[in-house]
């Protein structure tokens, strides 16, 4: 059995319980064992790095050091914010010897850099063989893959996918039998933690994301971040208020989609915990929409061939 270190982070025990549940459900079928990082702590999230730089590295740094004790290489981190903090900490600890010395002193532990955090997309990419052969109920929906801000950025640190127009999640969804739609707000800001203090603002920002996904014909939005999910799902009343219309498009964690495709029950995947009921709107015929030249977008336009100006 493949063993992988696992850092759930606080969201997966709280607002994003279904993310944790669905992940654990799918890995069971995939034949992978998740080993929790022993005695893990808070990653520091936005709070630590807006207050104290050393602390913002020391907190995730300690998680990495704890994970090193497991002797495993990959550390799967489903929360995009945790992933970002862990990647950033690892990057800084590898680059800055003085900082590393300070952090090691704060934690009283040694940092060796043997563990590499991977996000859920990288995890599913790497182990796609273990679920593609178990797909019994293809997730036959038009989906908008929403990456959010932290999964692919900053590119220097994450070194994963294209920062402005990522494709990796779309590729995984294709494996599940979905048709990813071409849409515009894959990495747009959802409002993030402003959800607590300025829910109206989050409603406005998130309504643009939902609006564009619906406009492009998506039947579901697929996410890989607890905060994205809570903003697009739990804040749907603020979104509807900002948009002046009612959206009923469901927002699914990618792990839930994988689980559904593998035939795992909705309850086991935690779908009943969503605020917006998981019911898919009708498929939209994109071609029939009164958007001129929408069809041209999928074909190679002459403009796309300008690079061949010089024959050589």
């Amino acid at each position, binding site marked *: 059995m493949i063993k992988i270190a696992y850092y759930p982070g606080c969201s997966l025990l709280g607002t994003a319980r279904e993310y944790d549940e669905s992940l654990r459900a799918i890995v069971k079928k995939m034949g992978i064992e998740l080993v929790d990082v022993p005695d893990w702590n808070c990653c520091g999230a936005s709070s630590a790095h807006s207050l104290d730089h050393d602390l913002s590295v020391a907190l995730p740094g300690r998680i990495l050091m704890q994970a090193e004790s497991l002797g495993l290489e990959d550390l799967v981190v489903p929360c995009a914010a945790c992933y970002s903090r862990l990647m950033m900490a690892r990057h800084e600890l590898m680059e800055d010897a003085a900082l590393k010395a300070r952090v090691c002193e704060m934690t009283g532990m040694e940092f060796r850099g043997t563990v590499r955090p991977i996000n859920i997309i990288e995890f599913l990419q790497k182990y796609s063989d273990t679920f593609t052969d178990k797909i019994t109920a293809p997730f036959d929906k038009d989906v908008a893959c929403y990456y959010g801000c932290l999964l692919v950025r900053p590119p220097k640190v994450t070194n994963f996918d294209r920062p402005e127009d990522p494709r990796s999640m779309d590729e995984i969804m294709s494996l599940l039998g979905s048709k990813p739609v071409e849409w515009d707000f894959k990495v747009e800001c959802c409002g993030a933690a402003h959800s607590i203090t300025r829910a109206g603002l989050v409603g406005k920002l998130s309504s643009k994301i939902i609006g564009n996904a619906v406009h492009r014909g998506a039947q579901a939005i697929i996410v890989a971040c607890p905060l994205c999910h809570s903003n697009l799902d739990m804040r749907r009343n603020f979104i509807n208020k900002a948009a002046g219309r009612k959206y009923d498009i469901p927002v699914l964690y990618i792990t839930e989609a994988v689980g559904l495709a593998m035939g795992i029950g909705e309850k086991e995947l935690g779908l009943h915990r969503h605020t917006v009921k998981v019911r898919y709107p009708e498929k939209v015929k994109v071609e029939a929409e009164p958007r001129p030249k929408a069809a041209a977008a999928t074909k190679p*336009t*002459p403009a796309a061939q300008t690079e061949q100006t010089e024959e050589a």
Partner: protein
Amino acid sequence: MSRIGVFVCHCGENISATVDCAGVAEAMSRVPGVVHSVDYKYMCSDPGQTMIKDAIKEKKLDGVVVSACSPHMHEPTFRRACAEAGLNPYLCEMANIREHCSWVHEKSEATTLKAIDLVHKMVEKVKKNQPLYSIKVPVTKTALVLGGGIAGIQAALDIANAGHKVVMVERSPSIGGHMSQLSETFPTLDCSQCILTPRMVEVAQHPNITLYTYSELESMDGFIGNFKVRIRKKARCVDEKLCTGCGLCTTKCPTKKIPSEFNEGLGMRSAIYVPFPQAVPNKPVIDKTQCTFFLKGKCKVCEKVCPTKAIRYDQEDEIIEVDIGAIVLATGFNVLGAEHFPEYGYGRYRDVIQGLQFERIASASGPTSGAIRRPSDGTEPETIVFIACAGSRDEAKGIPYCSKICCMYTAKHAMLYKHKVHHGKAYVFYMDIRAGGKMYEEFVRRAIEEDDVKYIRGRVSRIYEEDGKLIVKGADTLLGHQAIEIRADMVVLASAAVANDGAEELAQKLHVSYDPYHFFAEAHPKLRPVETNTAGIFLAGACQAPRDIPETVSQASGAASKVAALFSQSELTREPVIAVVNRIAPPLYSTCTGCALCVPACPYQAIEMEEIKNRDGVVVKRAAKINPGLCQGCGTCVALCRVKAIDLQGFSNEQVFAELMAL
């Protein structure tokens, strides 16, 4: 006993800030054989050189060591000074205590000790130096100009008008380059075609210029004055001698839906085509990747309609060999491709175009005959957004440099649009406006003030389509980082200028160095801007760095004058740093055993076997012989020779060991 002079340079403070120069000079004065040792602030200056010359005469020096900068910088300077004082220039050596010592170390005693070591070993080397005499090689007075854009055209015409032969090679079917695609040119708004096409014709008709279009450089051998170049003339499938350029084949060709390269994909061309009506030469080419005959084996319409029977389907690539004395690289640039701008929807939305495409739209010879129409539906755009620095100055796109031409052509584009669509709105998103150049700043001000182009300082984060409009999301950083959205009909990206396709490969073929972005590197950024580090190869235009037309033309003329200066001599003087096979008195004649292992090892084919005959003409020995004209002094044969019969002049084994023993 040697009489050596040591001259320690301070290089202003470059050396003296970390090295005790007087201490070095003093230490050297105690080395046996050194009769004169001094230090001075600027040894390369006139008084410095005079010091050396005077010392040679007064102290009867038979060897000179100048400890200063890299020999790459000033060896010729000091050797010339020595020669003027009557000393063989190859008895002068340089010890590099700047790049190899003072620049890379802190001020300390160890630094000075290292400098002393570096100078000392050169002193020991000079003791073993032999007088050498420079080699004369003939010059082939024909220049090769690679690239037929404005840079190549200017260089070729200047060289040809100086009375020398020029061979011009252009890989596309016509010369003219990017300049022929432009509508108007800044800052005067004069028509690009009107000033370029007469020059194109001049190139084609010039008695001194041989033009090979649709051709590429295959390989290059040799050295300055004596290059051997092979050119691949790709099969046009048209007999150029018979073709009259009537154009019947291109109008009758049934395959007509091929995006035209000249029109940047905005217009269509046929499979047999002339890139544009003013093309030089005005002879069509069959695009084998699109032609129905080549794909499916039947059609041959062009052959049937050709009145002069000039179509040759079986034509093959031809390899042409030419002897060349100098090469001018003028291979131009390209613009950053669509795949780099997913956030701007370039390649996805047809109305998001790049600068060269806008040039074609604005050009009278373009697909819309100069009327501003957007590509998707042919309507007149009411609002256009221009985005400067699309890719340029953006580390995330891997292009930290400024593309230099975009500020000006974006102002020009906005202006041309406003001149044609008076009620239209033009917005320019910019980072900084870089308008350094004669009448350039005035030109930009004119766009802003007279033509009412709205300049917004900020970047665009995203472009997406909504209800047939392109929503441009950006920030105005001068109005408190305000987020703004513009509903535009068309967006023009001033895409970064990048090195042309195949630049790296070409540089490697020609042994020319290039920068991390594959632009060719000049020999010195300030003082030798048109030369490369390979003697006899010069640079013109945007293959070196992004350039506008005036700069390109002046650089091309500069390169041409360098070539003309080279061709003004009947013989070239070459450094005698070459390998020699020893010749000694009979009965041995040479220690070479004639094994001939060195012959295939030589990368320059400079070694052949020679028969040594005695007075009666009887062959007494076979020994290797090195052609001094071909030898590049790489030393491969020296290392390989089993009996040590070969030595490199100026770097003989004896000299190198003397250096090592001094350490």
